[in-house]
C-alpha cells in the first residue's frame, strides 16, 4: 500500500479538491495555502506532509495561493501560510501562520477518529516548546514580506488613528507591504510586543528588522531615510503621468 501524500494542486487535478469537499462521506479535507516568496511556508509544508501520511483516510491538498485565486478568495486567504480544515463542506478549523502546534492539534481533532488514531491527551506542547513555537511563528510573520506592518484593523480599514496614519504614509509613497491585523490574534498582539521589546502598535519591519512605530516612520520619511531602506521590489512602479 502506497503512503498517502498531500496533493499539490495543479490545473490538471484541480477538480479533485472540489470532489473531496463535496464528497458525501463527510471526509476531512485539509487545505494548505502557500506562496513561493514566503519561505516560512516550508516549515508548514513538512508538517502537512507528515500529517497526510499519518491520516491517510483524510485528504490533504497544497494550494499555491496566488495561482488559484478563486479558491484563495473563497477561503478569505489574505496571507500565507494558512491551513484550512473542512468537513462536510463546513470549515471546522483554520490556522494562520506558522503555528505548528495548533495545526497538529486541529488536524488531529478533525481527523483522528476517522483514521483510527487516538487523540493523545496532554500532548500539548510544554511551555518551552510553546514559547519556541510562538517565536518561530512571530519571526515568520515579521519576515512574511520585505516590508511588513502590524496594525490594528486591516490596511483597507484601519481601526486606530496611528495605524491609519502609517498605512497612509506607506500608500502615499507607493510602497508594497504586507500587513497583519493584531486585533485578530491576541497571541501575536502580546507576543510580538515582548519579542521585539516594543510596547505599541503599529510596528513597521523592513527585511525582518524593526524600524519603529508611526512617529519614527514619519520622521524617517521626512528625512528621506525611509525610502532608502525600502528594497527595490517593494516599490510599486510609479504611475505614468496622464497626458491630455
Amino acid at each position, binding site marked *: 500500500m502506497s503512503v498517502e501524500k498531500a496533493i499539490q494542486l495543479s490545473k490538471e487535478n484541480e477538480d479533485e479538491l472540489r470532489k473531496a469537499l463535496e464528497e458525501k462521506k463527510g471526509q476531512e479535507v485539509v487545505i494548505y495555502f502557500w506562496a513561493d516568496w514566503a519561505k516560512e511556508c516550508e516549515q508548514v509544508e513538512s508538517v502537512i506532509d507528515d500529517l497526510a501520511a499519518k491520516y491517510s483516510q483524510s485528504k490533504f491538498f497544497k494550494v499555491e495561493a496566488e495561482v488559484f485565486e478563486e479558491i484563495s478568495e473563497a477561503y478569505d486567504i489574505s496571507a500565507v501560510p494558512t491551513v484550512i480544515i473542512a468537513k462536510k463542506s463546513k470549515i471546522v478549523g483554520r490556522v494562520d501562520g506558522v503555528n505548528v502546534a495548533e495545526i497538529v492539534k486541529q488536524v488531529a481533532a478533525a481527523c483522528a477518529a476517522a483514521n483510527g488514531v487516538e487523540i493523545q491527551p496532554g500532548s500539548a506542547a510544554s511551555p518551552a516548546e510553546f514559547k519556541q513555537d510562538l517565536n518561530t511563528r512571530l519571526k515568520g510573520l515579521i519576515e512574511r514580506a520585505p516590508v511588513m506592518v502590524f496594525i490594528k484593523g486591516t490596511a483597507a480599514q484601519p481601526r486606530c*488613528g*496611528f495605524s491609519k496614519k502609517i498605512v497612509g504614509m506607506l500608500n502615499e509613497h507607493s510602497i508594497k507591504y504586507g500587513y497583519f491585523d493584531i486585533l485578530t490574534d491576541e497571541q501575536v498582539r502580546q507576543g510580538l510586543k515582548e519579542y521585539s521589546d*516594543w510596547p*505599541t502598535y503599529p510596528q513597521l519591519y523592513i527585511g525582518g528588522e524593526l*524600524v*519603529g512605530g508611526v*512617529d*519614527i516612520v514619519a520622521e*524617517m520619511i521626512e528625512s528621506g531615510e525611509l525610502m532608502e531602506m525600502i528594497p527595490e521590489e517593494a516599490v510599486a512602479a510609479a504611475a505614468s503621468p496622464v497626458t491630455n
Partner: protein
Amino acid sequence: MSAKSIPTLGPMEQLIRERIVDECSPTELTIENESHKHRHHAAMRDVTSTETHFRVTVVAEMFSGKNRVARQRLVYSLLKDEMAMEGGIHALTLVTKTPEEYDASLAKTKPSNV
C-alpha cells in the same frame, strides 16, 4: 486655535515628567495630553481616566549616538508599568531629539522675512 492640553496637571502627566527628567536630564520637555481627542474611540469606551494619550517631546544630549528605536525604547521603558496597566497610558506619541537636532528643526520652521 484649538485647546491642545487639559489645564489641570494630572498625576500621570506629573509621573511622566518626573521619570523623564530623572533619566534623561532633558533641555526641553513638552508633554501634551491628547486624551480628549480619543475619548470617543471604541477602545476608550470603558476608560474613565482623562490621561490616556500623550504627545511627549524630549530634547536631551544623552540621545546622541542612539538611533530612533533605541531612544524611544528608552522612554518606553521608563513608563513600562503605566503602559501595561488597565486604564493607564494607552498611547504615547514621542519626539526624541538631541539639542543639535532640535535647533536644526527649529531653524527649518522659522518663518522667513517677507
